[in-house]
Each structure stands twice: as C-alpha cells, then as structure tokens.
C-alpha cells in the first residue's frame, strides 16, 4: 500500500515538474450551431486537428498548445463575451471565424494586442491601418473576384468584350467585393450587362435568371453561400442559361456538388486552398488526422489558418517572451511561408496584411473539382483594403 502511495506521489511530482505542462493558450471562436455552422463545423475541425497534430509533434517551441473553444453561434454579443473570457484565461492569440465577430472584435484585439486569424476575408481587414492585429490566410474577397476576372479576360478568344452579370445577396458579405468587381471589370474592358440580387435563403431564382438571360451574359458572378448558389445553378439549368457561373469561396465546396448535382457541371469555383486528396505534403498529415475521411475545403483552410498562426507563434517564442505583439511581428515577418502546400505561400508585411495575391480557379463537376489555374495578381497598393 505504502509503495503504491509512494509511486503515485512520485508520479504526481514528476507530472507537476514536467516541462510539458507549459502551455500556449489560444482562443478559438467557432460557429457550431448558428447560421454558418454548416461550414463553421468543418473549419473548426480543421483548426482542432491542426492543434492536435502540432501537439503530437511536441507543441510549439516545446510547449503544448491549449485550445480554448467557444461556440458563439454567430452572435456578436456571445463572441465579445467569449473573447473577454479568453482574455481572462490568458490567450496569446485568437482563431476567429465570421465577419460579424471578427469586425466586432477588431478594436478589442488591437487594444489588447491579441493577433487574430479569422475566416472573414473582407478586404479592409487586410489593411493594418484599420485592423493592425488581424490576419487571414486566403486572398481577400475582392482579390478573389479580381483574379477570376483576370483569368477569364486572359483566356477570352472572341473579338468582343466579355459580357458580365452579377448575382449576389443584399447582405454585407455579398456586397463586400461588388465595388471592386465593377471597377476592375471596367478596367479590363468587360461589359457589365446585368445585376440582380438573390438572397442567402432564397429558394428560387428563376425570375432573376430569366431577366439576366435576356442580356446574354458570358459569365455570371455568384456571390452567395452554398444553398443560394445551388438554387441559382439548378434554376439556370432549368431555364437553359448558356452563361458560365463563377461561384465564390463560400459558395463552392463539396456540399454544392451534392446539392446542385448535374447543374454544377462546367461552372467555376474559386478556392484559396487545395481540395482534399491533392498531392501535397499537408494532405498526408490531414489524412492521418482524419483517418482518410474526405474533408471539405473549409476544413483545409481551418487547418492551414492554425498552421500559419502556429508558425508565427513559434518564431515569436524563439525570439523571446511570447506576447501578442511579438506574434504579430512574427506574422509580419513571414515571407513565402508554405503551409505544407495546402494554400499558396503566405507573406504578411508591416503595412500590408494581404497573405498573397493567388487564387485557385477550379472547374466544378458533380463528382469532383478540377483545378484549372493558379491565378496570381500583382500586389497593387491601391487595392489594399478595397
């Protein structure tokens, strides 16, 4: 009995004295039950699996990562409360999620110097003047749209301007890239022939598509999320539209292929990461973490976001005390950092938080997404924040 007690005590002492106990706390805001949970869940899984993977590798600079997760259900009040709780628990960095919470926290994280990596790719969040502690690992919404316009412009063979239509929800997320699209389309010589709204929850887009069809666009930008995009593609097939649709990042994923079925064939989807199964080193890790189960692109972006943040934390930890400012500076020092091939290389600068200017253009089919091109734009200063 005494021996058992002694062993137990010794184990406890060793456990308490173990250097492995030192932990780096990061907060993770997830939407697991709110209106964006269909894509929020895979993204959160990606973040979680990346933390588990890094911990398996020995953590960051010898310290384990402790992930404090809160499901804020896409509610700003709950996001602020969760953030304050995280702060009290001593987080050094935050993995955020949507536009509503990321923007509500912009000033908080700047004041408290807590670097935040989110999945809201609004262009203004890439401007350090507005959001000095905010980062994301994908080209912003405006850059994504510009890249698509550039790609279709470069591959246009007919001797007339491209006729462009715009379909987007009357919603902050849908509206965000519209001014950039209009300006750049004009610059490239596109002809904007039609513009209409399809709401995020709309179940029918026939009337909008019939109106648009009369203007005979060659390409139509679709700026919604999966459900509205599926509705648009199916209705377009129904009314026999010839135009090719360009679905943006939250409107084209594996769910869309299922929801839209054959209506998706031949249209285009924008991505800022590879899709599951692509032959890159990171995919081996993801397969190992998920037991080989196919994952959505949102999962891969979640994984990559955490991976890039971890790299910044690692650099900061190696340089000295781990503070929010040190992590921010380390992020800003990243140059062409490759997150195991999962996304294009990432660089942040002191005056420019755009991670890169690269967008993957995929062609969609009901059983697969095929990468067509890796479109890169120049890093124009006048585009920063817009």
């Amino acid at each position: 009995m005494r021996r058992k007690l002694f062993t137990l005590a010794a184990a406890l002492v060793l456990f308490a004295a173990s250097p492995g106990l030192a932990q780096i706390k990061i907060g993770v805001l997830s939407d697991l039950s709110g209106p964006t949970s269909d894509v929020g869940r895979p993204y959160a899984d990606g973040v979680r699996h990346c933390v588990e993977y890094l911990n398996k590798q020995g953590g960051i600079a010898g310290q384990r990562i402790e992930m404090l997760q809160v499901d804020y259900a896409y509610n700003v009040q709950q996001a602020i409360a969760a953030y304050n709780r995280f702060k009290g628990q001593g987080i050094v960095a935050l993995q955020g999620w949507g536009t509503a919470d990321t923007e509500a926290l912009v000033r908080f994280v700047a004041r408290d110097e807590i670097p935040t990596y989110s999945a809201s790719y609004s262009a203004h969040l890439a401007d350090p003047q507005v959001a000095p502690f905010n980062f994301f690992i994908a080209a912003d919404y405006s850059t994504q749209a510009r890249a698509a316009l550039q790609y279709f412009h470069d591959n246009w063979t007919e001797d007339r301007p491209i006729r462009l239509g715009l379909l987007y929800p009357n919603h902050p997320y849908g509206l965000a890239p519209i001014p950039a699209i209009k300006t750049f389309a004009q610059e490239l010589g596109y002809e904007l022939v039609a513009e209409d709204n399809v709401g995020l929850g709309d179940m029918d887009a026939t009337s909008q598509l019939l109106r648009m069809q009369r203007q005979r666009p060659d390409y139509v930008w679709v700026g919604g999320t999966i459900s509205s995009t599926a509705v648009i593609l199916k209705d377009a097939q129904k009314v026999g539209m010839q135009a090719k649709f360009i679905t943006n990042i939250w409107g084209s994923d594996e769910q869309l292929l299922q929801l839209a079925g054959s209506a998706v064939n031949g249209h285009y989807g924008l991505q800022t990461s590879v899709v599951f199964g692509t032959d890159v080193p990171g995919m081996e890790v993801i397969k190992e973490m998920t037991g080989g189960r196919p994952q959505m692109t949102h999962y891969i972006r979640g994984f990559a976001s955490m991976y890039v943040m971890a790299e910044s934390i690692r650099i900061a930890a190696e340089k000295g005390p781990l503070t929010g400012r040190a992590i921010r500076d380390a992020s800003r020092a990243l140059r062409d950092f490759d997150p195991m091939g999962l996304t294009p290389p990432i660089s942040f600068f002191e005056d420019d938080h755009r991670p890169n200017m690269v967008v993957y253009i995929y062609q969609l089919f009901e059983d697969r997404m095929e990468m067509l091109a890796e479109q890169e734009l120049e890093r124009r200063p006048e585009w920063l924040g817009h």
Partner: protein
Amino acid sequence: MRGKCGLFHTSYASETRFFQSGFQKLSLGLFLVLLLCSPFFLSNYQVSMLNMINIAVIGAVALNLLTGCCGQISLGHGAFIGVGAYTTGICTLAGWPFFAALLFGGLVTAVVGMLFGIPSLRLKGIYLAIATLAAQLILSYVFLHWTSVTGGAIGMGLDAPVILGMSLDNDAKMFYLTFGVAAASVLLVANILRTRHGRAFVAIRDFHQSAESVGINLFAYKLQAFAVSSFLAGIAGGLWAHYTMYITPEQFDIMLSIQYLAIIIIGGLGSVLGSIFGAVFVTLLPEFLGVLAQWAGSFFPNISMYFLALREGIFGLILVLFLIFEPEGLAHRWRLIKAYWKLYPFAH
C-alpha cells in the same frame, strides 16, 4: 423592530411610491453599492458581462414600455438600436462630445421611431408587428447601402468614449457609464409609468376603445410611446457602438429585435423589473450553458463538440418552457418568492 405586514394605503401617493418599506430601500442601496464596487473584485470577463447586461437593460426597458406597457408590438427594435449606434458614431467621429452625440443619437432614433409609429393608429397586434418589421428591413437596407454615411458592408470603426478628457478604454471604466445610463433609463421608465402618460399607455394596452372614450388621444399617446421607447433604444445603440468600437449592419438585424422580444417576454411584459431580469437572464444563459458544455467536456472530451451545438437548442427549449410554465415572466416569479418569504414560515 417593527415590520410591515401586508399593504395598507391611505393615499394614491403612497400607493405609487417606489419603495413600500425601509427594508426595500436599504437592500437596494446595498445592492447598488455592491454593483458600483464590482469592478474592483470581478474579473474583466465578468465586468464585460455586466456591461452587456446594462446595455441590454436599457434596450429592454425601452421595448417593454412600448410593447409591454402600451401594447404596441415592435419587431423593429434592433434597427432602432442600430439608428442610435450609427448616429452616435457619426457624431463622435465628427468630433462631438460623447454625451451630446449620445443624446443626439437618441433624439434622431426617437424621430425615426415616431415615423414608423405613425401606422400604429390604424394597425394593431400582428399587423403592427409586420409594419414594424418593415421598419427593420428598411433601416437594415439603409445601414447597408448608404455607404457614404454608414460605411456600408465594411462598417464603421469608432473609438472608446471620451468623457471630460478621460478615455473609457476598458471594461471597468465603461461599466460606470453603462451602469449610470442604465440606472437613469430604468428610473425614467419607472417614473413615466407613474404619470398620467404611463397610465394612458396601460389603458391603451388594456382596451383602446375604452381608453379613447375616457378622452385619451390614442394617436398622440402611441406616438409618445414610440418616441420614448426609440429614444432609449437609440441611447442603448450609442453605448453599444462605443462599447464594441466597431459597428456593421449585421449587428442590428432581425435577430436582435427578436432577442429583445425574448428578453421582455422572459422577464415579464409590462414590468420594469422584469426587463432587468430578462436582460440578465438572456445575456447570462448562453454563458452558463457554455460553462456547462466545457464542464461536460472535461469528463467526456468527445461529447463536448456535440454538447456545444446542443446549446442553442437548450436555449430555445428554455424559452418555450418559459412561455408555457411562466408566461408572466421572471418578475412574476420574483413577486411569488417575495410573498413566500414575507409569510415564512407560516405558509397560510
């Protein structure tokens, strides 16, 4: 020591007194002192929760005055809060002193509220609800599309309020501002209810034809209710804008309106105290459920993900249970608890 047993009023003035006994005054006084000292012993997170409760209290007493007391159901409250937030924000960005901007935000919201209150003369019940829903939709559209003023989809960044040269740049400092304004709002609404106007509101709620037959000008009083309610909603919005320091149209959507309706239903329609209880309950419940989820997660790590997602469902269930078993809200339960202790240990 003499205690009061039952209530015995010999004048209207004594009946409308806020405090029926010295004990009430003393306990409220102690509670207020405790609240005022709370930033010294509560954590930053807990103080931030108090700030959100204070702002919710202002919005809730405002809606309760309109819906609970005057019977004018409103589904546009979230948008009215947004009008206050944007107006105050625009004024402070233009260099106005904070309180002037806050008051102006309240006034502009009052005017907007009155404008959307005009149909209330002809409409009531669910028809008025739809008319106010239109207010919500129209105002949301304005927030999103009047880009030159509101910043549109990008939103608007603001600074922490500056009062007499002091920046309220942390939760503890902000607490005194939100608490002061919340206390003033509660006092204002409680006093309005004791006046001729407050009684007219209640008469309109109970039966508009009877109210009209005793000489109440329905249109004027309904508009007054919209004006006061919207004014306070604007104040709540102004505080919210400067508390979060970043406002976007998404923050003031229909969900916010529904949340405030839930607050006053849970708290108790037509009760000032109920508005406070409702605000506390609705603000703290998700936090409590979150803590519960974390606690459960420490025992069953794999279950926590599912439990987190269940949380919203549990929240909805609690709302439904409230409607079934406590339709008069927490204020009614509070009255029962007080009555129980007044007679304790003799139940009958």
